[in-house]
């Protein structure tokens, strides 16, 4: 019997120099996890709409509160950031954008698009409905 082979392990996070693409890779995962639990809010809202005026008023009271607004704002950014950050992965999956300047540009683009569209959506939200 041969001894169990000690396979080499890949070095962990702290070994590497922090780069933009690496930081944004972590943010992509973090926003994904946030969105995962954020779907509870979406689900609650839909169930409340189907349940009746009282339940719906509860959701509106929550989303209208300061904490509720912060959470929904955070959810909007997490969703849009994850979207644009994810579109980056489409490029990479198809084999484009691997040069140093290209991957930096894609990553900055995702960051800027995520933040600016979040602000835009909220401006439209306030224009349409005057807040929640």
């Amino acid at each position: 019997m041969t001894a169990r082979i000690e396979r080499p392990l890949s070095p962990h996070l702290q070994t590497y120099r922090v780069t933009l693409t690496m930081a944004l890779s972590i943010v992509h995962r973090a926003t994904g996890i946030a969105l995962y639990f954020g779907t509870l809010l979406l689900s609650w809202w839909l169930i409340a709409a189907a349940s009746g005026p009282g339940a719906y008023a509860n959701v509106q009271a929550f989303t209208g509160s300061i904490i509720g607004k912060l959470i929904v704002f955070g959810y909007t950014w997490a969703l849009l950031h994850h979207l644009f950050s994810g579109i980056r992965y489409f490029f990479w999956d198809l084999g484009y954008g691997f040069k140093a300047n290209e991957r930096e540009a894609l990553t900055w683009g995702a960051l800027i698009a995520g933040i600016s569209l979040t602000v835009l959506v909220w401006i439209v939200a306030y224009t349409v409905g005057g807040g929640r």
Partner: protein
Amino acid sequence: MSGPSSMRTPLGRVRNLGSSHSGTTDFWRQRLTAVAMTLLIVPVIVIVLMLIGRNQAGAAQILGSLPIAIILVLFIIASAWHMKIGMQIVIEDYVHNEKLKLASVMANNFFCIAVALASIYAILKLSSGV
């Protein structure tokens, strides 16, 4: 049986024990659902914006309309599937205890299915106007 004296070759011993032909299934479905949501995100945001400032009766009327209900149901299916795969990857990366991993993956499945079915049921209820 499969000790050093076995007549089976190393290849024969591992055959049919791996993820043969299905190793990229999650990778593919993750991309499939991602593209679906990329296409659906603009109408979904428009729908949410349409509902701002309305009371339950107004919201129920909009959510119950056919195209809106279909768009939301599609979005919910894609997102539940996408988040199930994504969370499973996170669990498999960080949870090393085998039993805890098993329980987490199972809980992840339950959570995603429950969230999806509850949301879809709510939309169907609104669509049937009950």
